[in-house]
């Protein structure tokens, strides 16, 4: 259920909420939530699976996330997409969803959900469990091992019929996923983001939705899917993260015991997103029954999180459109009164910067002009010392804030794992602090407008 959202001064919270839900806009999170390395993670390898444990008494629950990595590609897209949703329906031990859900309820309402997301040109299956720490309960039966056992059961012991997944679950989840794909249009902000991405990346895997292709979903065969799953478990990188008030050895013992999978030679999936040089700026106008126009300007940054100038890109984006002191907010919203939100977001696994705003339909040209002008000002180095100082201070603050949420801690660490570039929070802060206006101007020279997309009403031209 969409929870009640009070009206906010800034649109930021709304986008942040989207970030935690399901659609592809997770790749334009409000904060670059990929900022922090936790030196306190203890890492071990069990059966070629990477186990990362962070003991902390900061949280009253324990968060466990299993991530299974796959290349984003047409051949396996839809099969990979369907898997997490079938797994969440039941297992050999909990064959019906009701039994499974009731077991979770009995663990003080452990929150269990599965998803499939896209990070750059990777497709990632996530199995997540958040379970109370019995220290804070009047009933003190230990919950951690039960949580590990449960996730292990879900991943390694699915419900099998006729050498395949449950036909019923495959059919029903394929339908749910088809609906989810088609209802992307219900949220115009997300829809505009996906459409501009498709237009920008026509020839690149990044155009694909992590939820697969609607037309392929109904064709999936339960036996073929199960064979694929076994192959995925045998050959693909698996990372398991645990954050909470736990003893690392207990966690590792639990995982060794409950995550029994047949592993072959595990593939190394390279971090190599396709970088395309813009030949010609693209303009796409799409009509629909809407009242407000949604303007997206998609840019290529030619910079990803493995590059040395990644932190400079964060500063660039912060000055341009990351915050309420940024150029887009000040000029599109505060000075011209054109919009309620006017922001820029990065997808740094791929190398895309997206400017977004919701505007009056007849203000399209004016808004594009103002937004492009801000890009030009960045190139010219028309950046004040105050803009630099505020952006650096706010970025540093956001970096530190990610430490207070188990999910952002895990997400950051996993970004390092995926890209192969280890970063430390202190290192990043240092780099941000030492960034100069000249550095930002250098980044600005690399930024190219690729596609301007406008979703508008059905009247006029």
């Amino acid at each position, binding site marked *: 259920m969409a929870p009640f959202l009070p009206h906010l001064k800034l*649109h930021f919270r709304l986008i942040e909420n989207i970030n935690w839900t399901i659609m592809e806009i997770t790749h334009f999170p409000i904060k670059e939530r990929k900022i922090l390395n936790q030196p306190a993670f203890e890492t071990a390898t069990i059966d070629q699976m990477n186990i990362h444990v962070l003991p902390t008494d900061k949280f009253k629950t324990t968060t466990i996330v299993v991530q299974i990595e796959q290349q984003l590609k047409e051949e396996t897209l839809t099969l990979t997409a369907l898997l997490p949703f079938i797994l969440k329906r039941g297992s050999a031990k909990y064959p019906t969803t009701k039994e499974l859900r009731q077991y979770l309820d009995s663990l003080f309402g452990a929150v269990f959900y599965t998803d499939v997301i896209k990070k750059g040109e990777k497709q990632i299956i996530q199995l997540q469990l958040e379970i109370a*720490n019995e220290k804070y309960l009047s009933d003190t039966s230990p919950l951690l091992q039960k949580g590990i056992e449960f996730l292990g059961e879900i991943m390694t012991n699915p419900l099998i019929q006729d050498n395949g997944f449950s036909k019923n679950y495959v059919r029903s989840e394929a339908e749910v996923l088809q609906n989810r794909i088609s209802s992307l249009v219900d949220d115009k902000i997300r829809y505009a983001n996906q459409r501009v991405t498709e237009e920008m990346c026509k020839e690149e895997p990044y155009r694909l939705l992590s939820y697969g292709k609607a037309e392929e979903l109904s064709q999936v065969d339960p036996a073929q899917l199960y064979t694929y799953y076994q192959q995925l478990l045998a050959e693909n990188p698996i990372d398991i993260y645990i954050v909470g008030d736990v003893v690392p050895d207990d966690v590792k013992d639990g995982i060794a015991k409950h995550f029994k999978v047949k592993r072959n030679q595990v593939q190394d999936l390279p971090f190599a997103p396709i970088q395309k040089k813009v030949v010609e700026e693209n303009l796409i106008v799409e009509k629909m029954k809407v009242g407000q126009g949604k303007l997206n300007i998609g840019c290529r940054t030619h910079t990803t999180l493995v590059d040395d100038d990644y932190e400079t890109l964060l500063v660039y984006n912060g000055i341009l459109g990351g915050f309420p002191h940024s150029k887009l907010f000040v000029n599109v919203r505060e000075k011209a009164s054109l919009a309620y939100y006017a922001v820029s977001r990065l997808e740094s696994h791929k190398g895309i910067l997206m400017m977004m705003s919701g505007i009056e339909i007849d203000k399209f040209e004016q808004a594009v002009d103002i937004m492009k002008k801000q890009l030009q000002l960045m190139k010219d180095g028309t950046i004040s010392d105050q803009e630099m100082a*505020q952006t650096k*201070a*706010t970025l540093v603050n956001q970096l*530190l*804030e990610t430490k*207070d949420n188990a999910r952002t801690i895990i997400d950051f660490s996993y970004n390092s794992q995926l890209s192969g570039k280890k970063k430390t929070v202190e290192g990043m802060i240092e780099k941000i602090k030492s960034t100069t206006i000249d550095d930002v101007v250098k980044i600005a020279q690399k930024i190219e407008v690729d596609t301007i997309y406008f979703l508008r009403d059905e009247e006029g031209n």
Partner: protein
Amino acid sequence: MEQIRHDQINETIYYEKMENGLDVYVLPKHGFSKSYATFTTKYGSIDNHFQIPGKDPVKVPDGIAHFLEHKMFEQEDGDVFNEFANNGASANAFTSFERTAYLFSSTGHVKENLTILLNFVQDPHFTDENVEKEKGIIGQEIKMYDDNADWRVYFGLIENMYHNHPVKIDIAGTINSISQITKETLYTCYETFYHPSNMLLFVVGAVQPEEIFQLVRENQAQKQYGSQPEIQRYFDKEPIGVATPNSVREMSVAMPKVMFGYKEKKAGLHGKDLLQQELTTQLVLDILLGPSSDIYQKLYEQGLINDTFGTDYSCETQYAFSVIGGDTPNPEELVKQVTEGLEQAKITGISQKDFELSKKKKIGAFLRSLNSIEFIANSFTKYKFNGTDLFQIVPTLENITVEQANQRLKDHFQMEQRSVSMIKPV
């Protein structure tokens, strides 16, 4: 400074009332890098008809509380966001039906940021020019919500349920209603509702309570506030039944959306009774329609619901209603089956086993939510304004009985109190 200890969950909260009437709460959070503060007035979109003590009653344009919230950020020497940004803090604000909150989060300079927060909220600067300029911005905010089908289906339901109560008015107002807002009406609202005795400050995170109280005491002592008599708020009499049993709106969506719910016949609860009713109803909704329930599983199997389906219960002194729904290929069939399921449950009743399971789940959910300092600050304030306490949730839950749940089930789900709001594809 008063100290309130909650042993089971290992939290201690500190409280002091300032001389001018401002309630201040501080919750130090062990191990957190971040601090978060909310400065909230008990004034929301429903407070559109009131009396400034000693003057005539006034009625103000729809959306003014939210408009005021936007305009508070403007200071004589510029935008207050700049001051927060200098300290690396993120600031924001929100307006709901009954509250307006101003907030920041930061990992450093907490005292400086807190001073900025207190000072900007206590120093309005409205001009004809800056009020006009905001109309374009809020106009686009309104239009964004107009195109948002989830918001429209939800608000459609509230509009259906209520005849007169201002909860049916969209928080941001309309383009037309905000066009009537002037700096004078803004000052009238400000002077009525932003007196410290109508406000609550909550600070949580990496903080030392004594330092915070010291700062707030000194800050407040510098400002002149006369004593304020109680604010009179007027609400037209609301009939018991719903205004409209159903509504359908067309929008450009892929699949229909439906939300339906039951309007409480009686409002006016406060304090312990309100919390008890809220929690009991939430338990009932979870037991009957949560993901572990038979009804949920049956609907899911038929493809009538997906994971957008959920339930909610809003319980305030002024009004209370439940909300059930989500995306569905067949809204009529979904409403029919859920209603039948609820009627059946009224006959068979809730079992002790399901009841205990749901309680456990809710206690777990409460613990989980305490990981979020934003949740703690916002919910604590909401409950205080309703005369109760966030940390009474677990003790209250533990005392609810299955008999009370079964009684609630019968009292709440009454056919004549039901309304349905649908969005269908164009």
